[in-house]
């Protein structure tokens, strides 16, 4: 395991992520935004690889990049009656920008102050096997609750997509 993270790939990925996010937010075409989001997700999964969290990188790729992005595209397709509906005036709001900027700055400063930030990365990092082992021992209960959450989402989605037959 490399004891330190090589600077070049990290910064490459950072530009990909931030660029993707910026394009998602500021693109006028909803479809383009969806694709840029997809690009950002893939970059994030790369970042996870850098942090030697292989399982999470894989999950990120499959779940977010695959399912969510595709699902978003589906809904966009369903809600566009005409092609040109996709092009929408760029919604900008100074208030939102102000609030987001303040929040970002405050957290950044606070993080800066996070005194014991080790620059060096510790050597050993547990692999997927240990992740799998712990998932079904220490984290079994959250796992079950997560499954319930999925069930609820399922019931809700089915309910809302169902037809509104007679009361």
């Amino acid at each position, binding site marked *: 395991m490399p004891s330190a993270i090589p600077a070049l790939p990290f910064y490459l990925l950072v530009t990909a992520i931030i660029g993707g996010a910026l394009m998602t937010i500021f693109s006028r075409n909803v479809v383009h935004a969806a694709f840029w989001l997809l690009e950002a997700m893939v970059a994030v999964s790369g970042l996870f690889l850098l942090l030697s969290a292989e399982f999470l990188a894989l999950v990120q790729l499959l779940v977010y990049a695959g399912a969510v992005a595709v699902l978003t595209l589906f809904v966009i397709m369903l809600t566009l009656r005409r092609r040109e509906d996709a092009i929408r005036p760029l919604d900008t709001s100074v208030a939102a920008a102000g609030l987001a900027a303040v929040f970002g700055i*405050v*957290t950044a*400063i*606070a*993080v800066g*102050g*996070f*005194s014991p930030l080790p620059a060096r990365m510790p050597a050993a990092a547990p692999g997927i096997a240990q992740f799998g082992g712990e998932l079904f*021992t*220490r*984290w*079994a*209960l*959250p796992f079950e*609750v*997560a499954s*319930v*959450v999925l*069930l*609820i*989402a399922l*019931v*809700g989605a089915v*309910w*809302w997509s*169902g*037809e*509104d037959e007679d*009361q």
Partner: protein
Amino acid sequence: MRSYLLIAPELVMLASALLAMFADVLPVRGRRVAAWIGAAGAAAALVIALAVGPGSVTLFGSMLRFDSLAVFARAATAGLTSVYLLWLAGNGASVGRTREATTLALLAAMGAMLMSGARDLVLLFLTMEAATMPAYVLIGFDRGDERGLEGALKYFLLSMVTSLVMLYGMAFLFGMSGTTSLDGLRVTAFGSLGLIAAVLTIVGLLAKLAAAPFHYWSPDAYAGAPAFSVAFVSSVPKIAGVVALVRVVGVLGPQVRGLTDVMLTVAVASMVIGNFAAFGQKDVRRLMAYSGVAHVGYLLLALAGGTEAGSIGAVLYAVAYAVPSMAIMFVVAEEGPTLDDMDGLLSRRPLAAWAMLVFLLSLVGVPPLAGFFGKLYMFSAALDAGLVWPVVLAFAFSAVSAGYYFGIVRSAFLGQRPRAVRVRSTRNRAADVAIAICLLATVLLGLLAGPMLSVLGYALR
């Protein structure tokens, strides 16, 4: 073995939820069989929860510990859900497909019950999401009505953002303390980042309870939603929400200077906005939304006191608030959401009218009902902690609240215009039994406060 016994109530709830979902498969016919199953299941969970009593679950990395406070919350949640489903069984026809509603209610209740025992940030987050997601669907349950869906969307979006803010806070809490278990959280060494992380986490919890200034979703959501779903959403999840807040504030409070001031400001804001906005309301659902904000304000005042008695008083009051407000929404669901629908209720359904009066009086805090004793404990704890003028303000507001609550009483009792024909008189005995149980609970919670408090392991003195 002990651990499985401890989470038996939750398992029973899950089982009955699944059974309710596949009610069609069962041989028993009838649209409302799901609700009956649900009601029975929840009742069983209540009994087990009380029987098993407190204890800590050694399995699963001891993320779950049910102390007496949690036992009380779990029992109350199960009991209320059982009464809710009993009422639902009685009103099934007017509510449409009860199967989905029952399942969602049971799953939400299960999530809430687990939440009251969660001692770990991850589990807390997961159980909280499990408890609130069904609320989105229940609020927008009436698929045909876009106002309901609009309410659900607003609730959804606002909750998502506040949950993310909470997650962001939790992430840093984890980062600083190295562990996600509640007891191990240490933020003191990390300067302002620790403080910020704590506040962000607590904001998420406050938003779930619809405390001001994070309450904006609740008036629109309740006003759009069908009354029967407001009955559930406005009462049951709040109990567990308060317990969670008690846990988090209990851990972070001593470490973060000024946290109690934040709680105090939010409490006073909730009282002011809740009470004043409720005046002049003509839709009872919206009125109850603002009343909910006001009562959360009273709760937070007790928690701001920071004493152990305050937190127990707050949980007791959460239940003392939940029972009457749910029952009021039952009657509103049967009669119609606006004040005019309530006109002449006394002449049409005298028992319901008297019950409504008792529930409203309990919310105002008139003795000898539950509301009064709840406020008495909470505010004596708060006064003990020196918060004199906020308590006086709280008492003054509860007096003022009689103004808008009595708007409902006046229409019900003095309204002259009995509505010509009752459109949906399809409710049957079960619904009335449910209301009767709530009535009994509101009165007994007041009179038998003593024994009930011993269940809570109350040690004020």
